[in-house]
């Protein structure tokens, strides 16, 4: 990718108060892929859950690989009401990077890939699927337990292929 040519900031949210979820809405369809960079702390340990277009049906699945520092593992969920994304230990600064490919096309189901980094729990990667051909216009990140703490940041970028 040429520097300074295809990576656009769409929106950023720095939490002024604790919140259980963050939503990016009215997302333009003018990019190719989306990236969300999440730098956060949480009030309770749990996975970030991703849903699209407010769909809470059993239309999501994901597969993960991870390492705890002593053991390596893998897990998956199917027909879930969300994509189970990265884990966060309570009160530990973590970073998660979510990439959503071809989010605006209306012909294919939507796939995601993400990396999570929690040095108190696990390092891992996850792939996800939303079984919908609808263009993604909103994304909600929900902490599985408790809140995202004040000062957590979530930034949505658009990547253009041309």
């Amino acid at each position, binding site marked *: 990718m040429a520097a300074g*040519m295809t990576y656009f900031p769409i929106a950023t949210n720095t939490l002024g108060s604790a919140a259980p979820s963050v939503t990016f809405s009215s997302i333009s369809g003018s990019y190719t892929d989306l990236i969300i960079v999440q730098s956060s702390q949480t009030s309770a340990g749990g996975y970030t859950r991703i849903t699209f277009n407010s769909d809470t049906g059993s239309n999501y699945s994901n597969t993960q690989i991870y*390492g*705890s520092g002593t053991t390596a593992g893998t897990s998956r969920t199917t027909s879930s009401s969300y994509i189970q994304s990265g884990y966060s230990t309570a009160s530990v600064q973590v970073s998660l990077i979510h990439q959503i490919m071809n989010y605006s096309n209306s012909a294919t189901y939507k796939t995601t890939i993400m990396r999570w*980094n929690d040095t108190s729990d*696990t390092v891992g990667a996850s792939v996800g699927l939303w079984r919908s051909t609808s263009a993604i216009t909103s994304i909600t990140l929900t902490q599985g337990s408790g809140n995202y703490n004040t000062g957590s940041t979530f*930034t949505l970028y658009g990547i253009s292929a041309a």
Partner: protein
Amino acid sequence: MAYSFELIEAKTLGSNTANVNFTSIPQTYTDLYLLISARSTRGTYSDSSCYVKVNSSSTSYTSKLFEGSGSAVGSFNGNTTRLHDCIIPADGAATANTFSNIRVYLPNYAGSNYKSSTADSIMETNAATAYAQLWAGLWSNTAAITEINLSDPLGNFKTGSTFYLYGIKNS
């Protein structure tokens, strides 16, 4: 429309070098993204390491590694004196002309929270020894990151190794 992905500095080694440093990093970005293509002059062995530190600090790091070699997977806790130990091929036994592919992402590097880091590293040499690594890193320090310090502790980074530091803005 604003462009948010900017090259801060590029380094291409013209000679074998043990240490590569990015200093006086501007504090005007939101995140930092480092891309490395490196090889080591280390003898005898097929691999070496690319240590990643910040602000010349050798303390307050925590890290975890998940890796696969093509035949096995494993997970390890990293050394507390550096952020990441990324693998790179070495002259001693690695296929000639093969270099690593490493990316390091540092969100909110100028903020006052502890600094969490993502790194992915691969060493693919079309030989028996190959690795894909996922790293999680944390520097438990509230200082802004103004330097990134890279070193090969077992040899030198080989001529032709490249190091690109990008800044990403969120607005």
